[in-house]
């Protein structure tokens, strides 16, 4: 792979869901994701942050090919996937794997850990012998920091952190290039969260995995990410290097998110940028900039025209006032 083609890139990814309105025959669509573009290279972490309903998980569903995009496309290595791509092949699916938020519901309680780990191989590579599968599963178990005797146990015998390790191990069984992590530590306790984050860092170093890290916890994102995409109501509002975004946010929504995140230091004083109201409905998003009804610095233009992502101070921002110092 040459330097020009990144491992994973999204190009104007859009996903709408059709729903029936309250009135008979009325057709509405939920604009869950609109015009998302990004790039992700080997060994890199791209964090996607935003409140619930901003389209983070929809993006994860598209990238893992659970659903196909309504418009736009994404590229994994040399292969392009868009709405006209039929059923993606096994190799393609194997390249992108996912770890879900809640390890209590993402593991089958009736399967032993060994079965859970071996299943992806059984389905995708039936030619591999049973003994080889078992060996691979046992190796993977050791890799994520679990003991060999755990192989024959059921998920309920594990703690939350151990279960998340199993979920990571299962995702790695297919030797993926990209791992989508959908809130991987938000269901875990603080002390266990650190263990899982360290595991993820180790695995990334060892295999050069690319992470699409979806989270709402900005302190975790700051620790893990190389680049950050902030989303609001299905659209990216700011996209750039982690340090740029955290140290010098340009979009008012990013600023509000950062100032709303509690800092674990009682001596730290900060100006709270208070955000009024709640996320508008994605069925009928506000005209112009979707953020303008809650924006503290909105001007008339914001209600009429939607700003595009434009490069300002080393990152992409979609705000009419990004260039000013407000």
């Amino acid at each position, binding site marked *: 792979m040459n330097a020009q083609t990144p491992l994973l890139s999204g190009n104007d990814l859009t996903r709408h869901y059709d729903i029936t309105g309250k009135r008979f025959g009325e057709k509405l669509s939920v604009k869950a994701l609109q015009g998302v573009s990004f790039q992700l290279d080997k060994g890199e972490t791209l964090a996607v942050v935003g409140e619930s309903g901003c389209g983070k998980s929809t993006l994860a569903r598209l990238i893992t090919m659970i659903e196909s995009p309504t418009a736009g496309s994404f590229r994994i290595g040399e292969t392009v996937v868009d709405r006209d791509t039929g059923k993606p092949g096994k190799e393609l699916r194997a390249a992108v794997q996912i770890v879900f938020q809640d390890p209590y519901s993402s593991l089958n309680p009736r399967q032993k850990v060994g079965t859970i780990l071996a299943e992806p191989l059984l389905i995708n590579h039936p030619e591999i012998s049973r003994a080889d599968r078992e060996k691979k599963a046992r190796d993977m178990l050791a890799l994520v920091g679990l003991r060999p005797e755990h192989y024959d146990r059921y998920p309920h015998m594990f*703690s939350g952190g151990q279960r998340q390790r199993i979920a990571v191990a299962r995702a790695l069984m297919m030797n993926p290039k990209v791992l989508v992590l959908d809130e991987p530590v938000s269901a875990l306790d*603080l*002390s266990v969260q*650190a263990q899982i984050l360290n595991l993820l860092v180790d695995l990334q170093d060892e295999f050069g995995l690319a992470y699409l890290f979806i989270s709402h916890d900005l302190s975790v994102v*700051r620790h893990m990410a190389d680049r950050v995409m902030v989303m609001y109501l299905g659209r990216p509002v700011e996209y750039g290097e982690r340090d740029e975004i955290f140290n010098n946010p340009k979009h008012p929504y990013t600023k509000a998110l950062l100032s709303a995140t*509690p*800092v*674990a*230091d009682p001596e730290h004083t900060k100006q709270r940028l208070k955000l009024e109201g709640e996320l508008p409905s994605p069925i009928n998003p506000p005209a112009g900039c979707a953020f303008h009804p809650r924006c503290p610095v909105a001007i008339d233009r914001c209600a009429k025209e939607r700003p595009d992502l434009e490069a300002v101070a080393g990152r992409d921002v979609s705000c009419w006032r990004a260039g000013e110092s407000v």
Partner: protein
Amino acid sequence: MSLLEIENLTVEFQTAQGQFRAVDGVSLSVDQGELMAIVGESGSGKSVSMLALMGLLPWTATITADRLEFDGIDLVRQSARDRRKVIGKDMAMIFQEPMTSLNPCFTVGFQITEALKTHLGGSRATRRARAVELLNLVGLPEPERRLNAFPHQLSGGMNQRVMIAIAIACRPKLLIADEPTTALDVTIQAQILDLLLDLREKEGMALILITHDMGVVAETAERVSVQYAGQKVEEQKVRDLFRDPHHPYTSALLSALPERAQGKKLPTLPGVVPGLFDRPEGCLFAPRCAHAFDLCHKRQAVQAGAEDGFALCHTPLRKGVPTSLEGASLEGQVRS
């Protein structure tokens, strides 16, 4: 005199596998108008101890306490009937998941006025007027219209506001907030926390905030009590706690925070909170403690004095270094 005094509270649950001690000798006192935070991971007994105080635990729970006093009333000796006059009126609680704590079959207005009707009486019209006033107070737009809304028609943040409205309906002296913002987004979390702090100021009530989020603690609390495996392991003023934690657990918990990390690897706390079967003999934290020595594995920890944050530890930390025990007492204790 303090508003709430809890001394040596223990809660045990009868399970199929035997007695499980969820809360183990917790003491706590809260003054009038104070903001106290209880921090701990899941299984630390922080919610259970407060539910015990509210009398909301099922019959399988055995609650014992040397003293359980609220506003001069002895809750231990009080009958259930008398206690119900206090609970929900002078002492109220809000829960983690607003969506599941409200009754989906009744309108928001009904659920707010229900609390008023039970405790304060008054005419239908005055109750309704107070409900509108309350919704205004918690910052819900269009309160008159919202009274007729059902919980599923409101968002999580709005439902939490309704929960708060119900809890403060009778102007309680103590409000217990059990992870009030865990299920909410950060921007909404900031709104709800501000609201709680604001109400505390306006109504002059004391607030106990149960949380696992160190950020929330740092930004809101005055005094912090740290719980681990059902025991209170440390209690300090918030600034001192973050500056110089005395219990190794608090110290480890704080250094596991990603924002305190130096470099890509986080310092971790090995293992997990002990459960029903693997409760250690000595100090409950000893198996995971970086500073544990022989005595910790054999003897239950003793509570240190106020200068060491009441840390439940044989060698409480000072500036991250364990204080040494006098050699003699150490020897003696190990031998006995």
